[in-house]
């Protein structure tokens, strides 16, 4: 398979996943903002969606404060923000176009329809329809897209690169989501009383893990939430699930590739890790380190499959 096409499929997987995750993050944050929150956290609720000073500055170049309306507009609809939902759907569509010859008509139709919807959406439309409705529609389109890919696409290399992109993007997004709430984890662990059923419930829903949590653990406590999202392989968005999925795809693609060994190593490290060790040494540090390793893995995938001479 052409390296460039593999790259297109990989990014297709990432973009669709990222669009959905941004929608989840925005929806969850909005719900959270409607609840009573400790003041030190409330002030940073929207700001915490930004991961770095660089991202914050890009936002501040256009808006003056981290509050709901401007953040929502910037993260959902702004074509100039390369990570906005708008940009992700556009990116997904460009990659579908470029790799059109290895995709099915149904896939191409699905992304075109989504793009037509997203393209015509103005801030006022979102307000009129209700923000939650808009974000729900993005999630639904992402579910539909995944279903169409699973239901129509040949299980070959192109499919595997799509899976790989999606799995790695999920790993990044789950770790990002946890980082955005790391203050709450921290406080809950320290005081052992900051527990708030509704807030953690909202958080779990953002990670699409609420019902799984209810089935696997009894009461909601932050340590179990962290356990589920990091180490439990029964939910598709836990860090371990994402890494195991990536490792499996890479094993099937090319067992002897360096990146396959790297993913395998990362997965087995996670598998043997215990949550209390992670919490003792600091959740934030662990998450940053995890993200770094995912970046190194993505770079190695490029070297092994995309940049080959």
């Amino acid at each position: 398979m052409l390296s460039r096409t593999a790259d297109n499929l990989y990014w297709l997987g990432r973009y669709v996943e990222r669009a959905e995750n941004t929608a989840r993050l925005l929806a969850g944050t909005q719900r959270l903002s409607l609840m009573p929150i400790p003041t030190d956290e409330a002030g940073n609720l929207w700001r915490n969606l930004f991961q770095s000073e660089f991202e914050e500055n890009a936002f501040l170049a256009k808006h003056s404060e981290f509050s709901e309306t401007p953040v929502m507009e910037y993260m959902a609809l702004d074509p100039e923000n390369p990570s906005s939902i708008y940009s992700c759907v556009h990116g997904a569509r460009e990659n579908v176009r470029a790799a059109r010859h290895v995709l099915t008509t149904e896939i191409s139709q699905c992304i075109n329809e989504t793009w037509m919807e997203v393209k015509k959406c103005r801030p006022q439309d979102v307000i009129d329809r209700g923000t939650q409705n808009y974000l729900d529609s993005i999630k639904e389109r992402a579910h539909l897209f995944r279903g169409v890919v699973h239901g129509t696409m040949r299980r070959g290399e192109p499919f595997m690169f799509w899976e790989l992109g999606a799995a790695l993007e999920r790993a990044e997004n789950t770790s990002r989501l946890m980082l955005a709430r790391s203050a709450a984890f921290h406080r809950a662990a320290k005081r052992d009383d900051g527990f708030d059923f509704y807030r953690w419930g909202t958080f779990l829903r953002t990670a699409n893990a609420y019902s799984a949590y209810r089935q696997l653990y009894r009461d909601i406590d932050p340590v179990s939430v962290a356990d589920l999202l990091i180490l439990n392989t029964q939910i598709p968005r836990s860090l371990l699930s994402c890494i195991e999925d990536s490792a499996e795809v890479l094993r099937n693609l090319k067992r002897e590739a360096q990146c396959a060994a790297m993913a395998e190593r990362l997965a087995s490290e996670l598998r043997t890790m215990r949550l209390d060790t992670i919490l003792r040494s600091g959740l934030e540090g662990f998450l940053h380190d995890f993200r770094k390793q995912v970046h190194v893995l993505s770079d190695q995938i490029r070297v092994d499959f995309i940049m080959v001479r």
Partner: protein
Amino acid sequence: MSTTPNDGNDGPMRPFDEMLETDGTVRMAYAQFGEWLEGASKEFLTRKNDEADMMFRRLGITFTVYGDAAQTERMIPFDIIPRILDPQEWDYLARGTIQRVDALNAFLDDVYHDQAILKAGRIPPELVLNNDAFRPEMLDMDLPRRIYAHIAGVDVVRTGPRDFFVLEDNVRTPSGVSYMLENRQTMMRLFPELFATNHVAPVERYPSELRANLRSVAPIGVDDPTVVLLTPGQHNSAFFEHAFLATEMGIELVEGQDLFVDDGLVFMRTTEGPKRVDVIYRRVDDDYIDPLAFRSDSMLGVPGLLSVIRRGRVTLTNAIGTGVADDKAMYVYVPEMIRFYLGEEPILQNVPTYSLRNKDDYKYVLENLESLVVKEVHGSGGYGMLVGPKSTKKEREEYTKRLKADPDAFIAQPTLALSTCPTYVDEGVAPRHVDLRPFVLSGQRTTVVPGGLTRVALKEGSLVVNSSQGGGTKDTWVLER
């Protein structure tokens, strides 16, 4: 819903209506269809038209408009009323277009070898040798099966029952075949009942014929050739077609950056490392194909490709340098090529053409601008044309200045009364002017798929069918005996 023939006081210019006789009776080819159309209400057709529009949008069949700052994507309007040809008409067209392409291939092989036709004085040598599209790099190269134009689109217009004229030969990188195929798909979904009553010759085999054709011209000694389609990329106006054909043929769709030359061979970069490429169906122009040989600023081509072609280790389709055969200045000599190489009389006629480089023609054209169509020799896409009868005095004066400044750059032709076909428009169904581009494949044999791309000028009275100028397309039916 009924249609009326062109009512008009056009006098001798009254165009030929492909569906209706002058007295309003329906011609043979349209007999079944006419009955169906009679029973179709305006509401029904409007609904079907909207459905078709939605189908194209969802599939993302768009083209990019050049010169538009925003690079807007537009759709070529699709007309739901088919253009129908009877078996005899098609037989005549098929023989005529195949004959023409055979002669063009023989001509190309000749001008890049012995140049017999020039030595025989049948074509002025300077017209060929000083032509920008003539590539000295191709001299004395022997191509597989001596084919240069593997894929050709011959633009044909009609003015009467048996009066077909070739307007233009396209032997560089002709496009439009994906519309021929998609239009048929769309029609079969919209009106399945029509295909039960009309025996329409299928066009669906085009991609497999093209694939077999491309494989048949692989370099000598390659038994199972790897064929790829080379596209300028997804921002090219015809990208949809490139992706479509690659899918249909099951071959890789590559860009210049995906290919490289090493050790005298061409390779593509794959996830499993370099893979040798044997045949490149390229949709990139000559100028951009190899920055080492032609335009050095080109990012679309493959450095060193020409050297591999010259060694016969990769086949490029169409070959480099085919443009010398479809130049508007060369057009007038195609009937001569047919006589010279095939020893036959041309089946299809040329449109009488005045070359402004010729003194008598020059004078005639300047005096008769009002009744002529003037084109740039190197122009395409309907840009830079003057349609005399539709022009204003001011436009003609402006154009005269350009003609006087560089007469060699122009040709002129009488304004043909292009035939019309019933077409769906806002007011209902009305006649609009059409042309036809059948696609001719040359390899082991020369073949043409029954049908082609019918382009229609949607504006009332307009003779310009180009999509960039408000033209649309129709499904083209060839009825089987």
